[in-house]
């Protein structure tokens, strides 16, 4: 309103910050090197030295290397000023490793400081000395630490405990026993603060030496509530490991379900009586024994180990016998652990609460586990960041014991301020803890969530409603009715879609029948459903013979209803399906089905002739009469594969982080161990010892497992774009295929009867993967990706093949070659000689008026060296003669060894030698690797993180093309299609790859091409490693587009080079 005032206010605020900045170190941060630092360091005044060091610190903070001042700084270590000392220490620790020799100069000072009467000085000296990390001084540090471990000051002893991991980190074997001895001394300290720090160093120095804990176990438990919060987190974990290694699992705990699955159900009912949670909840104490079993097993074994074994169908090899269990009621060690951790559930620190909750979940008798519920729910409110982590853990607890969380469903109702991940997790938890009594209020909430502006979340909610219906068959009608209401509004067509997806999962005939009825009833609703119907009907026809009676009848009804309502293009397909079904039904074993089929056949054949209205209503009456609602038991969905210990990092990132250890094997710690000399590793390490050495590829195997479940075959939803739809209708083969079904419908033109199995298999997989996909169940990266895929429609581009133009390069100009012109282009052919060779098409053209003879191309350096790394040329046949004007095509095969430098060749003709250069193209060091989208996504998920490179660029190819074609009949050509085609052509013309899929977001706006995604796959010639390329488009259709190109490949260097090449050709203009 009053800009001049705004300006004044701004200047004022500037001025006021200037005032506030006086006296701070602002000027040092802003211009750290505006004065010469070196003389300041040598100044005789402490204040000047301080200033110099502050400037150095500012430079460090800004990421500059100021290690060249090291010698001058080290001198100041002897200063008496504590502030100066502190600053010197900060500097020293930052650079000590770079200047070991100069750092040694400071040792004497540290030694002296260690004897200082001021505890603070001693502690700082010890911390810095240990932090310098020089192997030479390790013995000195060790002596200092052992001296400080007996220091009168608690603070110094605490620092001594913290110094031990630093020493251990130097990996000097000879010191290990001494270090462990000091850990033992410090664990026995009477001050809780020291014990906490000692616990932390125990965990990083010698986590397997549980006999050290055994000696002090009781005392540690008693001191636990007084230990500092950070120490508590670590100590709880150590005590838990000890208790399990020493005494085994607790008979009354949930973990005991491991004991044997046969007893499980009997035991379950006993425990339910103990629960005292009222009749209703004990009825629904229905955790999925198998999945819970698996998760808990993974706590003890490493998940990799367990999963790999289970894949060999050899689950029985790991048996827990009765001896590995103890009773939580009689065993004092277990009791004291639970007793001392229970007040920690009230801790202010959410990490402590979670750690304590983990202990109770694993060790506490079932009837006591409920005490962890409220604290867990309380820490949900601590901070936004921890909310996500806590919810991830609650998710597993809730799946293992839904009845405990069921009364607290209100805590999982979302707030609009929650982030998407938190919302999705909450909805998933809600769907897993819903009970018959709470479903109505939960469902009411869900109905609100569906209207959330965040479409991803709305979709997640619809999926959650589906899950609720599966879990609570008795209440399924509420869920289905609700979805139905939505369908009726035509607002959320994808709810219909979800139902059809559910179809494959729901095995209960009644439920299937109900959904099939819905399909029939709402077959003509909206734009998408009619197009989906063909495939759904085909699917139904395929599985007809396997269905139950009820479902069969319903299928017949539905098909006839669809047929009645059908018009236009699909009518013939429906008719075909119908007659196929009737044929099948007439031979059915059940007379009801035979009867129905004959009846419908008669009815409809009449109908086709007369098109009477009465018959239709008549048919509907029949349909309604026959339709009955029944619900039966549905098997609960399996648990997500969060198989890592609660509260661990691995649990959140969904793969075993380096250093992750499952719980020790129960009872692996024997009593004799106490008598053994200490220092020997007492506990049998779990076979899953992939601990610290685990490298990324190790992690792959674990995350693969998850990704199978989190992967979505990109699935479709509603598409609102009219332009697009009409385009699709005109095309003989649909432009947009809704991909779940899309996979299947590719076969639609083939002989329908001959490939039902195949059809079923594909759609099975696609449907399943869609349903399996649950928000939050995948690791962040994959989550993003799967979410992005969620509402995509697949576009099939007509034959781009014929538009591909390979780029021709010139090897020799006619002017230089006495009339011989040689061009080459990289060919997509695969060499027949060796898979390492790249084929190059070479065209020799005689532009002169005389015949050229004896043309040949040879490797210029072939005679020099024939070692493996130099690019080599497979000798070429000689062209004996080339008539004027004649062109000859030859195939040249070269082994480039991934060299990107030009290959020097010598061209001989007529006895003359001409040097030429052949420029390799990395785009042809690969060959196409055809695969379907699912395989692509599967491979992609195995190549995360460091195997993934992304670069951005702009692309204007489609505009050039449009300008070129302006005036042609292509004016009304679809813009999306044009973009897709021009991108695909560009890619395929410049690299030897295959197009996997083209996806576009369903909710795309008219002009907005954002979200368009092309996937290409290839295989590196030399190593046969897959190399996946994904291009994601952003921007408006008519403007230059922003492309983000991603390459996933195990050979990272190759991937980078390839990516650079792709970017360069995408950017360069087409013609």
């Amino acid at each position, binding site marked *: 309103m009053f800009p001049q005032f705004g300006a004044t206010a701004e200047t004022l605020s500037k001025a006021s910050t200037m005032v506030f900045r006086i*006296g*701070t*170190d*602002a000027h040092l*941060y802003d211009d750290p090197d505006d004065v010469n630092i070196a003389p300041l360091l040598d100044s005789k005044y402490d204040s000047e030295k301080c200033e110099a060091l*502050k400037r150095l*610190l500012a430079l*460090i*903070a800004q*990421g500059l290397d100021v290690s060249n001042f090291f010698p001058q700084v080290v001198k100041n270590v002897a200063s008496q000023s*504590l502030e100066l000392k502190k600053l010197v220490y*900060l500097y020293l620790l930052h650079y000590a490793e770079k200047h070991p020799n100069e750092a040694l100069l400071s040792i004497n000072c540290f030694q002296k400081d260690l004897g200082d009467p*001021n*505890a*603070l000085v001693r502690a700082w000296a010890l*911390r810095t000395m*240990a932090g310098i990390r020089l192997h030479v001084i390790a013995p000195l540090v060790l002596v200092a630490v052992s001296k400080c471990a007996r220091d009168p*000051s*608690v*603070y110094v002893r*605490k620092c001594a405990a*913290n*110094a031990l*991991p*630093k020493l251990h*980190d130097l990996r000097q074997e000879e010191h290990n026993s001494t270090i462990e001895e000091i850990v033992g001394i410090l664990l026995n300290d009477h*001050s809780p603060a020291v014990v906490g720090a000692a616990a*932390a160093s125990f965990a990083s120095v010698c986590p397997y030496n549980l006999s050290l804990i055994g000696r002090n176990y009781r005392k540690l438990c008693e001191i636990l509530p*007084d230990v500092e919060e*950070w120490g508590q987190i670590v100590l709880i*974990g150590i005590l838990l490991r000890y208790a399990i290694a020493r005494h085994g699992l607790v008979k009354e705990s949930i973990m005991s379900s491991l004991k044997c699955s046969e007893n499980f159900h009997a035991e379950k009912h006993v425990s339910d009586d103990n629960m005292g949670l009222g009749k209703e909840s004990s009825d629904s104490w229905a955790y999925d024994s198998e999945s819970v079993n698996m998760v808990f097993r993974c706590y003890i074994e490493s998940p990799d180990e367990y999963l790999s074994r289970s894949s060999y169908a050899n689950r029985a090899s790991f048996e827990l016998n009765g001896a590995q269990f103890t009773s939580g009621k009689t065993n004092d060690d277990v009791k004291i652990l639970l007793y001392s951790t229970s*007040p920690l559930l009230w801790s*202010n620190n*959410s*990490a402590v609460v979670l750690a304590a909750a983990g202990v109770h979940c694993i060790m506490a008798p079932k009837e006591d586990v409920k005490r962890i519920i*409220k*604290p867990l*729910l*309380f820490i949900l*409110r601590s901070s936004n*960041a*921890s909310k996500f*982590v*806590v919810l991830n853990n609650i998710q597993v607890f809730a799946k293992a014991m839904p009845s405990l969380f069921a009364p607290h469903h209100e805590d999982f109702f979302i707030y*609009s301020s929650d982030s998407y991940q*938190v919302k999705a997790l909450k909805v998933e938890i809600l769907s897993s803890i819903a009970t018959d009594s709470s479903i109505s*209020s939960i469902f009411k*909430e869900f*109905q609100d969530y569906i*209207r*959330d502006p965040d479409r991803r979340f709305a979709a997640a909610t619809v999926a959650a409603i589906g899950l609720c219906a599966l879990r609570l068959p008795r209440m399924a009608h509420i869920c289905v009715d609700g979805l139905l209401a939505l369908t009726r509004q035509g607002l959320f067509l994808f709810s219909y879609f979800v139902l059809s997806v559910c179809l494959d999962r729901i095995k209960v005939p009644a439920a299937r029948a109900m959904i099939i009825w819905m399909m029939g009833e709402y077959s003509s609703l909206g734009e998408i459903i009619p197009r989906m119907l063909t495939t759904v009907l085909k699917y139904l026809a395929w599985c007809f013979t396997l269905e139950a009676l009820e479902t069969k009848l319903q299928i017949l009804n539905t098909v006839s209803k669809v047929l009645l309502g059908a018009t236009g293009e699909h009518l013939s397909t429906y008719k075909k399906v119908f007659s196929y079904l009737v044929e099948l039904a007439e031979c059915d074993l059940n007379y009801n089905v035979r009867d129905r089929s004959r009846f419908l056949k008669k009815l409809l054949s009449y109908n086709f002739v007369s098109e009477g209205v009465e018959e239709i209503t008549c048919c509907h009456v029949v349909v309604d009469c026959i339709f009955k609602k029944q619900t039966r038991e549905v098997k609960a969905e399996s648990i997500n594969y969060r198989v890592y210990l609660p509260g*661990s*990092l691995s649990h959140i*990132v969904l793969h075993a*982080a*380096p250093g992750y250890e499952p719980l020790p094997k129960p009872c692996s710690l024997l009593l004799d161990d106490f008598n053994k000399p200490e220092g020997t590793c007492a506990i049998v390490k779990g076979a899953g010892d992939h601990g610290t050495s685990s490298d990324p590829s190790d992690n792959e195997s674990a995350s693969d497992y998850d990704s199978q479940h989190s992967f979505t075959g990109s699935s479709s939803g509603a598409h609102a774009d009219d332009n697009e739809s009409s385009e699709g209708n005109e095309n003989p083969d649909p432009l947009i295929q809704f991909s779940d079904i899309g996979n299947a419908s590719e076969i639609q033109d083939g002989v329908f009867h001959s490939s039902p199995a195949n059809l079923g298999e594909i759609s099975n997989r696609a449907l399943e993967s869609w349903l399996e996909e649950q928000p939050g169940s995948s690791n*962040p*990266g994959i989550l*993003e990706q799967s979410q992005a895929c969620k509402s995509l429609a697949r576009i099939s581009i007509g034959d781009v093949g014929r538009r591909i133009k390979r780029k021709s390069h010139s090897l020799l100009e006619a002017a230089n070659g006495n009339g011989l012109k040689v061009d080459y282009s990289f060919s997509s052919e695969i060499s027949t000689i060796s898979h390492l060779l790249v084929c190059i098409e070479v065209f020799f053209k005689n532009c002169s008026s005389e015949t050229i003879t004896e043309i040949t191309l040879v490797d210029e350096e072939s005679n020099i060296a024939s070692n493996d790394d130099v690019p080599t040329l497979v000798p070429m046949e000689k062209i004996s003669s080339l008539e004027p004007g004649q062109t000859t095509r030859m195939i040249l095969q070269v082994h480039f060894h991934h060299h990107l430098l030009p290959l020097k060749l010598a061209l001989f003709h007529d006895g003359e030698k001409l040097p030429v250069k052949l420029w390799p193209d990395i785009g042809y060091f690969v060959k196409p690797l055809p695969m379907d989208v699912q395989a692509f996504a599967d491979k992609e998920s195995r190549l995360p*993180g460091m195997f993934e490179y992304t670069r951005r660029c702009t692309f204007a190819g489609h505009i050039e093309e449009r300008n070129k074609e302006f005036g042609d009949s292509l004016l009304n050509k679809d813009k999306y299609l044009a973009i897709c085609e021009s991108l695909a052509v560009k890619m395929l013309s410049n690299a030897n790859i295959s197009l996997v899929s083209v996806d576009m977001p369903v909710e795309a706006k008219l002009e907005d091409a954002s979200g368009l995604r092309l996937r290409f796959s290839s295989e590196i010639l030399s190593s046969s490693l897959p190399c996946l390329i994904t291009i994601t488009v952003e921007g408006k259709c008519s403007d230059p587009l922003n492309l983000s190109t991603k390459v996933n490949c195990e050979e990272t260097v190759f991937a980078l080079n390839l990516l650079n090449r792709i970017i360069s050709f995408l950017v360069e203009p087409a013609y």
Partner: protein
Amino acid sequence: MLQCIFLLSDSGEVMLEKQLTGHRVDRSICDWFWDHVISQGDSLKSQPVIASPTHYLFQVVREGITFLACTQVEMPPLMGIEFLCRVSDVLSDYLGGLNEDVIKDNFVIVYELLDEMIDNGFPLTTEPNILREMIAPPNIVSKVLSVVTGNSSNVSDTLPGATGSCIPWRAADPKYANNEVYVDLVEEMDAVINRDGVLVKCEVYGEVRVNSHLSGLPDLTLSFANPSILDDVRFHPCVRFRPWESHQILSFVPPDGEFKLMSYRVKKLKSTPIYVKPQLSSDAGKCRVNVLVGIRNDHGKTIDSITLQFQLPPCILSADLTSNTGTVNILGNKTCSWSIGRIPKDKTPSLSGTLVLESELERLHVFPTFRVGFKIMGVALSGLQIDKLDLKTAPSRLYKGFRALTRAGEFEVRS
């Protein structure tokens, strides 16, 4: 354990790096992080744990400052996050707020604090009281002094006595002429009212804040008249667990100064102090909005600073909203904020107007959620009452004060 901590400004600039262990983390990880933040937008910003190609990252964002910690090995993620939260709390306490300038201006203090708070990747001293004794917070006096004299040290010469005691939160032996204890009940009401106008959930998160200025080593007990209404509690480390377990009595030796003694929550409350009735109807490319706000039941206390905020749906072209009380502002990010203040006696505040939808839209399908703010002084809506506060070793004169305050937390009305 944590390997490195970075402080990033809201533009992605690395303001500070502190290497914690010998395994140095290159700051290129921040570039990676920031690239991904830019490319993935808010979805990464809201992810507290990120698996980058080389490190696992924990992030906490406070007032535009991103605290980023890196580790390569397994550790409890909540520990990393809690620690970062603690660092940000301490820094904002020291520097009187958090922003880019204040961190850069006081980078030496930030370094000194970080060095004291974490050693070799494991938290060392995180108790604010002790930290204050070890490293003096910047204040006007020290600033002026440093300008005048040219030098002043903010690093304490000796070790605070509390580091050695078994009550590390309490500075050793403070002396006060007037012994005072103030107890505040600060409550936040969370409520969700669904589209049908039904109160879906209503609960109170409360804190017992204590400000104590007591000489010597005081031992306090605090008891409530109705502790049974508390659904769950969390305590400051100074609270002894056993008396609470047996008698629901808080027995503690308080830290000096202000601290949060306990937080609690009370669930399943029956009503909210104010009502908000949104009515939205949408057709013909428009959406009519009408919102009424009023007092539901009188607590006898005035309800202050009532505000109403909602996010306009993205497909809105323009909004014309007026109110009969208070002011309506539409902020840049399509947030409409209506600040009412106090509800006048003679009329019911209402907000009405129309939203114009984008041209191709006929109706609005997504209605906004209204976030309500209010403040009531002098009443704890949970109904929790303090019974008495006793000091075991009573000094001659002890002044005790009690206050209560309730404000809206996550108070949402869906429409």
